[in-house]
């Protein structure tokens, strides 16, 4: 797996150089890749009242017979359960819909903010970046919880709206889809703004000046010059939000209603409340398969980034 690590300047890799490659490599194979194979295996098992709570268990001590028994015990029953039950199907569709709509909303909020930051006077830009990043450093859980304060029935949002006379009786915000969207947009905004800002900032201003000299109105320049050039940043930002939002747990759990169940909550319930590890694993495998394509595109955008920077 780990091949010869070759320093570019000389061809005999030292022990230190091998270690630098091997240690993180093996760590990720052991703690990131291998666990997925275990999830796959357990998703093909059946629930059992035992420790661990699934069957069959691979018994290597029994030799070939053990492996044969193990393979014979595997079944697709969990996948059949998932595909046949509306609860799971709706949960996946709901999560994809919420992720798609909130990514679009994040782009609508993120583009003006990132563009404004990139066009701000150069000395203020690092300060603006820090101000956008700072909330991201404070706890995600706390930031979602802060909205529970605001959105509850006698919370500040209703008080403000009543005071302004926009509504005559308190509206329900908490435990609705609107609350989930607000929570997601709020939590993921920095993830959207930073890649967008990076690509707007790198933009060659002579191109914008050329467009202006040729009489192109500013709004049109933005759509025909700026946005197409910033497309890699837009793509990176959108995927950096979309993929984790599909599997989001904390936001829908704290802000959403009991009737909106995103797939992350379904998995959580299967695991913690129902103690059904095989079904939880099958839910995870299907979620991973659904996200495979966006993850591949994201990987492509990112690794192209590394090699582009290497020069």
């Amino acid at each position, binding site marked *: 797996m780990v091949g010869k690590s070759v320093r570019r*300047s000389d061809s005999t890799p030292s022990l230190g150089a091998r270690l630098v490659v091997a240690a993180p490599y093996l760590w*990720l194979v052991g703690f990131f890749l291998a666990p997925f194979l275990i999830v796959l295996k357990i998703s093909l098992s059946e629930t059992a009242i035992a420790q661990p709570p699934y069957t069959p268990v691979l018994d290597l001590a029994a030799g070939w017979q053990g492996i044969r028994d193990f393979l014979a015990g595997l079944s697709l029953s969990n996948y059949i359960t998932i595909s046949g039950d509306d609860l799971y199907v709706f949960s996946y569709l709901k999560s994809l819909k919420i992720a798609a709509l909130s990514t679009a909303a994040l782009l609508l909020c993120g583009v003006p903010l990132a563009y*404004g930051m990139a066009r701000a006077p150069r000395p203020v830009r690092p300060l603006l970046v820090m101000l956008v990043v700072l909330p991201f*450093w404070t706890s995600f*859980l706390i930031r979602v*919880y802060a909205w529970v304060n605001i959105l509850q029935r006698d919370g500040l949002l209703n*008080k403000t709206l009543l005071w302004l006379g926009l509504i005559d009786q308190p509206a329900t915000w908490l435990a609705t889809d609107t609350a989930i969207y607000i929570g997601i947009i709020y939590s993921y905004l920095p993830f959207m703004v930073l890649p967008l800002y990076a690509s707007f900032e790198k933009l060659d201003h002579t191109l914008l000046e050329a467009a202006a000299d040729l009489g192109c109105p500013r709004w049109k320049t933005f759509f025909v010059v700026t946005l197409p050039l910033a497309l890699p940043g837009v793509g990176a930002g959108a995927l950096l939000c979309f993929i984790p939002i599909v599997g989001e747990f904390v936001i829908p759990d704290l802000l959403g209603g009991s009737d909106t169940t995103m797939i992350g909550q379904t998995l959580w319930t299967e695991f913690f409340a129902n103690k059904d590890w095989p079904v939880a694993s099958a839910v995870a495998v299907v979620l991973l398969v659904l996200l495979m394509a966006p993850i591949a595109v994201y990987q492509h955008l990112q*690794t192209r980034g590394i090699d582009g920077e290497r020069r």
Partner: protein
Amino acid sequence: MTRISSTNVVAIALGLAFLYAPIAILVIYSFNASRLVTVWGGWSMRWYAALLDDRAMIDAALASLGVAAASAALATVLGTMAALALTRFRFRGRLPFAAMIYAPLVMPEVITGLSLLLLFVAVDLDRGFLTVILAHTTLTMCFVAIIVQSRLAGFDRSLEEAAMDLGCPPGRTFLVVTLPLIMPAVTAGFLLAFSLSLDDLVVASFTTGPGATTLPIRIYSEVRLGVKPEINAVCTIFIAVVATAVVAASLIEKSRRERRPAPPA
């Protein structure tokens, strides 16, 4: 382009207001004297005083700090190695390696949490603080790797080459030349790993065992039951600590940069 248009000012102002208003409201209400979280009863420190008696919360906070320190230290070492591997070495399997560095950043936490838990069960490792540390290290080393890698990519190799031409062995060159130059990125990576670990609810919930409660798990179990003034106070302390650390780190970084001649663009 020195003047900024008014639309841009409005966009920035609205964006920042949206990002900061909820946090500001939370902080203000943590000083509310009233037990009713929605009624303002004047300024008071009573919820902070109440926290001092909440043994379970203090224990969870201390446990979280320990887990965060251990996992961030491990993640910083592994992440820096990974960044060096990506930028300095050509080896077979480099692309899958890069993929494994980038994937955890977007992987939904429920999947990472579940898969790590099943691994720990499969190898029969007792669940507790150790398993949470291992899980957080895996998750956060990738963030460290990406921060350090971007610093290494825009780095003047001639200094390292000069040291090696003068007979400095590669390991020593790394310690005396490379490491001091990438130190700001390594520090930033450590802080990010620390704060991500301190903040994590989902992965910790999956990988922890009986008796090993971290602060987010504790806060979550309280928050599910509704808003409580004590929780506002805990959150305010949390925000104050993190904000101080981040601002301090960026000021140190700024003063270091100003003492050095500006690097060529």
